[in-house]
């Protein structure tokens, strides 16, 4: 629920700030629109998922669609449809950020049209087939993945070999988008390389009695492979760059995720007997420490750090006009709220295994609030002052930086209609008892 509120709030504020500022380039305007709407669809997905999980438990959320109950059918269909829409938007984000790669005459209209059509078409097909092919939509992430990998490698090599330091912001931007889109699966890289994720998948399907289909399994495997490959490529690039030039904060972030995946892979290997127990005999529960590890790493990464990464991209690459007075004020509020939400969630996670009394955690939270209120102005000022367009200083053709033809309202109306559709269709579907 915290993730849902965070994503919805950040998404709406992003769209609001984009609407207020005079957008600098069509590339940054479109990037902001895509990121804002990704956050909104993610927020809707997490909102429905958390309500469903609160009512029925995790099994109902992840297993087959249960059509026995009207409310459950609606919630589980709606959250899956929201996920499909966010994947469609994620697919096109690499085509507008860091660079606008498609011809400006038609790119906005085509991308918006494809996103809306595919969101409606795929989610309708899935709901008709009771979501037995769910997760196959991850296939659509492949083109964006290739674009980001190409950009990262091209500009890292350019920076190191041609000594063009200003290329660094491009490779970091591409890397951050990769982490934002594939962050969770990056933490499973060792398990994927060892090819033991299929055992976890099998346990999951058996425990939740989910009918496996080739499309679903392929989609999940592809999703895991893209994340694993991405972190290995980033880690190789950052190691080489660190050796030649020196480490940067982004290098440390990549090595941290690599390390988390390494420990996670070892932990996965150690619990393999427990994982296979469902298939071979009696299902055994995972050790508490194992669950706790994933609560703090993969789960936190997907639910909390992803929106923070998106917000960092928006602020650091000047996607929204943060310099104007009112936007600056709103930006400061976003930063304070993000820091508070993250602190309170981390405290709650710590409280789940350490017997800290409520009084103590409230006191710690109050201390954190005091520190943030003192520092947030400095943090925001530094972020805003160092903010620079990703295209600044690069000899780019006009097609990449020029204003686009697409109006912002068109984007909002079209995706707003998709939101209405993904709420109305499951309501109708569950209401008719199909």
């Amino acid at each position: 629920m915290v993730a849902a509120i965070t994503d919805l709030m950040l998404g709406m504020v992003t769209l609001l700030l984009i609407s207020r500022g005079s957008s600098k380039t069509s590339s940054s305007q479109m990037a902001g629109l895509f990121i804002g709407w990704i956050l909104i669809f993610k927020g809707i997905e997490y909102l429905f998922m958390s309500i469903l999980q609160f009512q029925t438990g995790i099994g109902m959320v992840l297993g087959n669609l249960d059509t026995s109950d009207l409310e459950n059918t609606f919630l589980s269909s709606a959250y899956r449809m929201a996920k499909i829409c966010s994947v469609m938007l994620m697919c096109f984000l690499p085509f507008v950020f860091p660079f606008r790669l498609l011809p400006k005459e038609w790119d906005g209209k085509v991308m918006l049209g494809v996103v809306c059509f595919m969101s409606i078409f795929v989610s309708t097909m899935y709901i008709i087939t009771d979501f037995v092919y769910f997760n196959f939509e991850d296939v659509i992430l492949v083109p964006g993945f290739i674009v980001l990998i190409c950009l990262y490698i091209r500009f890292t090599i350019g920076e190191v070999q041609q000594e063009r330091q200003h290329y660094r912001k491009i490779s970091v931007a591409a890397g951050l988008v990769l982490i934002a889109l594939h962050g969770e699966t990056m933490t499973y890289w060792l398990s994927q390389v060892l090819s033991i994720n299929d055992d976890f998948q099998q346990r999951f399907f058996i425990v939740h009695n989910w009918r496996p289909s080739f499309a679903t399994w392929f989609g999940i495997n592809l999703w895991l492979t893209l994340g694993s490959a991405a972190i290995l490529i980033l880690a190789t690039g950052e190691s080489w760059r660190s050796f030649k030039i020196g480490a940067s904060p982004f290098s440390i972030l990549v090595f941290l995720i690599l390390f988390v995946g390494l420990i996670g892979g070892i932990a996965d290997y150690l619990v393999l007997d427990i994982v296979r127990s469902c298939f071979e005999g009696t299902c055994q529960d995972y050790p508490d420490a194992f669950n706790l590890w994933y609560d703090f790493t993969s789960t936190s990464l997907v639910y909390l750090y992803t929106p923070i990464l998106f917000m960092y991209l928006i602020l650091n690459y000047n996607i929204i006009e943060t310099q104007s007075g009112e936007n600056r004020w709103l930006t400061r509020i976003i930063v304070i709220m993000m820091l508070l939400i993250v602190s309170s969630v981390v405290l709650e996670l710590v409280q789940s295994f350490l017997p800290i009394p409520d009084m103590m955690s409230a006191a710690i939270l109050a201390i954190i609030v005091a520190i943030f209120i003192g520092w947030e102005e400095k943090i925001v000022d530094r972020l805003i002052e160092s903010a620079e367009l990703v295209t600044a200083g690069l000899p780019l053709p006009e097609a990449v930086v020029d204003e686009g033809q697409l109006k912002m309202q068109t984007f909002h109306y079209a995706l707003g209609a998709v939101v209405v559709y993904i709420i109305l269709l499951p309501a109708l579907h569950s209401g008719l008892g199909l």
Partner: protein
Amino acid sequence: MSSEEEFGTLDLLYSKESLLPTSIAIGLTLLLLMSTTLDFMSELEDTAVFNAETPEWTILFDTQVIDLTGDGHTYSHTEIWGDGEEKIVDFDLTDLLPDDDTRIAYIAVSLIPEENTGVSPSEPDVGCDSIGVTVVSDNSTLVAQWDDDRNILQGNDADCEDIPLFLQAYPQFYNDTSTTILAKNEFQALIPWTEDGWGLGELSIKVKVDVQSYAGQGVGIIDDDEEITIQVDVYSFTSSLQE
């Protein structure tokens, strides 16, 4: 900067130097995808076969009273009621379970009037008092099957007999020693019998007494109060599997 040539759109994606590393990276990604997909597919077939078969499981129940008093009862409470008096007696059932595998099945309550206990020689077996008893369900914190057909939530007696009450706590638990269920595996078979929370809360018993103080001609008024014992037996169960 001035030495840089203007980028074309494709120049943004690769350069002469980056083409080979990019190709290797994408090639290795494809290789990883193919090898893991093969592995995934073999597991897919195994899982499909596994999930297609649904064996029948026998679930064995071990049911017993949670004995806190030492004489086979969970609680035993004795109190004196005055004529026309109505009292509510609360029993705390929130922390009774000895371990995580045990759950509360049902709750049996016996209301034993003084005349039937044999402990009060002062009161002869004449002129039984009228006793009304109810398990308070409104706003109760006790999590139970309040609408179950087998429940006996109220009783009356004026014949010096015990008044039995019954409250079903765990859903679908009918005091059988075993039952059968179709499930894919042990984990799923046991899911219906591993729900937490049932039977926990505060049990409230409302008792009203009208004392039959006139024992008849020649005997006259014998007393104006009544001693009643409430015995609460909380039955717990553990479940185990037999294929």
